[in-house]
């Protein structure tokens, strides 16, 4: 068996999981479980944080190790689901290393929703929040349009590799600005409801959830890092919107 290829493939799977936003505990477990399914592996262990992976395995009394730096990518829960299914399958009916690499490539090549779809449904989400916060019909429709605007701006900015702090601040600022402008034209609308419902699109839901789950599982390094990420994101939103709202107060 080509042991180096196995190591690289397993690391690749772990990297994909971390990038798509899986919990650290799940990544560590999946990597070790996948590895143990191959015959002759005496020992496998992994150490994963948000920014890097270390993995080593022992085969015929020889231990090899690799480290891998991970950069945060775009959240992709479908990919996590697929790799999860793959690791379940590999345990019940073993496959070769090449087959595993092929499966990973297939998962990597899976399409995402197009920009138009995410824009439309992001805006539907914003309209949903409009209903949730007891908005009138006019405010709900306006939240929908501000939602479209926010998605366009944040997609444009992240395409140009702007960091997430500035990205959130600018998106939140433009949401607040457009809500204020709409309020000037249509004075019966409530600024607060429109701003809050469109803000929710920027809320770091994944970071919050994973901060909780990582901390429960005992992965304090990642738990604290994610909590800091979520807090920073919230501050960025507040700063961006506060900057705009300041002119109206």
């Amino acid at each position, binding site marked *: 068996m080509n042991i180096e290829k196995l190591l690289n493939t397993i690391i690749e799977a772990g990297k994909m999981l971390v990038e798509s*936003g*899986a*919990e650290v505990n*799940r990544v560590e477990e999946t990597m070790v479980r996948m590895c143990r399914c191959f015959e002759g592996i005496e020992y496998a262990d992994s150490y994963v944080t948000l920014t890097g992976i270390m993995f080593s395995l022992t085969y015929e009394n020889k231990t090899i190790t690799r480290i891998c730096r991970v950069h945060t990518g*775009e*959240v*992709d*829960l*479908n*990919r*996590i*689901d697929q790799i*999860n*299914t793959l690791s*379940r399958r590999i345990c019940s009916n073993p496959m070769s290393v090449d087959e595993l690499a092929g499966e990973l490539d297939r998962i990597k090549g899976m399409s*995402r*929703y197009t920009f138009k*779809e*995410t824009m439309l*449904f*992001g*805006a*539907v*989400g*914003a*309209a*949903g*929040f*409009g*209903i*949730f*916060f007891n908005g009138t019909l006019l405010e709900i429709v306006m939240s929908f349009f501000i939602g479209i605007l926010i998605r366009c701006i944040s997609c444009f900015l992240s395409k140009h590799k702007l960091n997430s702090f500035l990205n959130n601040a600018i998106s939140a600022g433009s949401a607040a600005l457009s809500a204020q402008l709409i309020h000037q034209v249509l004075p019966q609308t409530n600024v*607060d409801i429109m*701003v*809050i419902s469109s*803000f*929710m*699109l920027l*809320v770091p*839901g*994944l970071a*919050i*959830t*994973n*901060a*909780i*789950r990582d901390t*429960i599982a005992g992965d304090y390094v990642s738990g604290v890092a994610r909590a800091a990420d979520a807090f920073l994101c*919230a501050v960025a*939103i*507040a700063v961006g*919107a*506060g900057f705009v*709202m*300041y002119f109206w*107060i």
Partner: protein
Amino acid sequence: MVYVILKSGISSFLASLGFGFLFNIKGRNLWIAGVVGAIGGACYKVSLYLGCSEILSNFYGALGLALASEILARKCKTPVTTFLVCALIPLVPGGGMYRTMLAAIRGDAQNTLNMGLQTLSIAGVLALGILLVSTIMRVYYQEKRKYLSKK
């Protein structure tokens, strides 16, 4: 009552569904994520309607959505986070954050601290609800597996 359930359910369903698209959930899981979000939102709004405090209602909402996502995730054999992430978002205290920020730029220190504390405790209560449910479920399924293997 029925009106409250319907309205909050539909609105949080839409919100969670939107986030499902943003997080690239595919197929059947997308709709289930929406339903779990609807359960969480409805629990929250109904407890508010029945006169519970803001913080307690958030706690009940978190309990409801965490329970639903743990059970459904095991049924569908997908990671719990798939549903939990989308469903949690309607309950995240975005309004509290916004009001804290408004009070801060008005220079109203008293209100800023008040609102900030309230927002932080809501976030803490949401975390507590999820933590409680996921710990209990983990123990429950472990015990169940042990019991079944003994048999």
